[in-house]
């Protein structure tokens, strides 16, 4: 829908001016399942270093779009350029440069913390010493060093989520896609998780996140709201609240949904 021009007062939450370099370019993305149109001519760009929120009700088409951006599903039509590579012809390059984490699955329950790290490091082509270095610093940062040899199923949910995010970041991807990453965790853990996101964005990683928690949408630089397969709104949270005369993003959402 919109291409928001960069105005001087849009800075990242990290304090850097967002680069005007686009790291995700989507033009007229269409995805059909038989007669059902899941994504209806989506057009948007995501800038490098941005925290981009992708919101919408269940069934609005969020999950479909994210899977296409990750190279998991083929689009029906449309242009897509992710991390500098074309999704049709350079799919493998795309996959090497992105990370993915979802609420439903992130880590293997019957492997230990370290084994999970080693596995994901391995399939992204990291060398053995790279893996052990990064594993060490990761576990120290998350305060998980004591749980190195514990099975994932035996560690608390909050730790699992943070670990899953770090594992998705292990190979230093350009973009990390997070599909409803904070479902069901307590409010303190949720904020710790978002601190990890901020740090990642501060380090130059673009974060593409979908969420059900409307207050989390306020942590994003820009937010897009999908309704019935189309992008109904795309802007910064402040501008959206102003535009829809709402005090919270929850209200924005309700006004949008009721308005259709």
């Amino acid at each position, binding site marked *: 829908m919109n291409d928001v021009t960069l105005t001087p007062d849009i800075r990242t939450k990290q*304090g850097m001016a967002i680069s005007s370099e686009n790291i995700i370019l989507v033009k007229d993305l269409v995805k059909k399942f038989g007669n059902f149109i899941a994504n209806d001519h989506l057009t948007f760009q995501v800038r490098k270093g941005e925290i981009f929120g992708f919101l919408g009700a269940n069934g609005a088409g969020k999950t479909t779009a994210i899977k296409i951006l990750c190279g998991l599903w083929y689009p029906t039509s449309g242009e897509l350029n992710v991390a500098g590579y074309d999704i049709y012809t350079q799919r493998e390059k795309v996959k090497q440069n992105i990370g993915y984490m979802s609420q439903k699955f992130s880590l293997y329950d019957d492997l230990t913390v370290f084994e999970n790290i080693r596995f994901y490091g391995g399939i992204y082509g990291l060398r053995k010493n790279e893996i052990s270095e990064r594993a060490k610093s990761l576990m120290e940062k998350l305060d998980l060093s004591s749980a190195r040899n514990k099975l994932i199923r035996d560690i608390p949910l909050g730790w699992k989520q943070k670990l899953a995010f770090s594992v998705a970041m292990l190979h230093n991807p350009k973009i990390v896609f997070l599909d409803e990453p904070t479902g069901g965790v307590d409010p*303190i853990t949720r*904020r710790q998780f978002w*601190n990890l996101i901020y740090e990642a964005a501060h380090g130059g990683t673009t974060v593409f996140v979908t969420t059900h928690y409307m207050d989390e949408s*306020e942590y994003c630089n820009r937010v897009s709201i999908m309704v019935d397969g189309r992008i109904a709104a795309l802007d910064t949270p402040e501008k959206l609240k102003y535009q829809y005369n709402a005090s919270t993003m929850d209200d924005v959402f309700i006004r949008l949904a009721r308005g259709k």
Partner: protein
Amino acid sequence: MKDPVAVSVKNLTLRYGATLAIDDISFDVAGGELFGFIGPDGAGKTSLFRVLTTLLVPNRGACFVEGHDVVKEYHQIRNLCGYMPGKFSLYLDLTVEENLSFFATIFGATIEENYDLIKDIYVQIEPFKKRKAGKLSGGMKQKLALSCALIHKPRILFLDEPTTGVDAVSRREFWDMLKRLRDGGITILVSTPYMDEAGKCDRVALMQSGKIMKIDTPEGIIKDYPYALLAVKAGDVYPLLKELIQYPGARRADTFGQSVHLSFRKGEIQPDELQRYLIQKGHPHVDIEPITATIEDCFMDLMTIN
């Protein structure tokens, strides 16, 4: 004559193998109350509901629903409660009508005799009554599951995370429906991970890791919040947060959307000094205002105490 105490729980403990799911909790719910259990996954909400609906036997403790013991008199309880388990257990290959009719019949009721109870809810899905339940959206499944739980006119309702995974509009409508049902005299126990829904209940119990941290009306919980809160806004949340965490005298700094909640011991709060400090640190446009705590602030504070 309704029992004034609809649910009574004393020293309830439940284990799954080695895991302690519920750790010695006690509470009462009065008849006709809309009572909320607020807490994240693993708090013990689902386990608690399963004990109260007689699906699980506690390891320790005495629980009574409408005066009946959950262990010995489970049969009576099963007749008078309505239950909506997590993920709305419905028969996905049966239609809306067929689901409703089934649940009415196994309770010995008919749709006609209790229709006015569910009318407000059911009219929203009635146009889809011949659609298979598996093909409904989250919001519609929720309404159908609620109708099925109500159709036999239960005295007490147990709703386990009925708003999880449902869009914001449906969530609001759902709570409106619950309030109307409560006004009609049904006792309702609801569990939810969403902190903002606490404000819609008569009383809430804040739960974490199998324990109840606090029980009171939402207003009561907020009133009991022992610290003074400032909401600080300065454009870029993350660097602001990092500064504020270091700010001497502040107890906690937590992000809330675009602002940071900073808590102080009462009497130690000094907004002007804070403003000067922040301007000095390079945040020119700073917005500081004192606010009352939200349930989420209280929850986080209670978490750190326990």
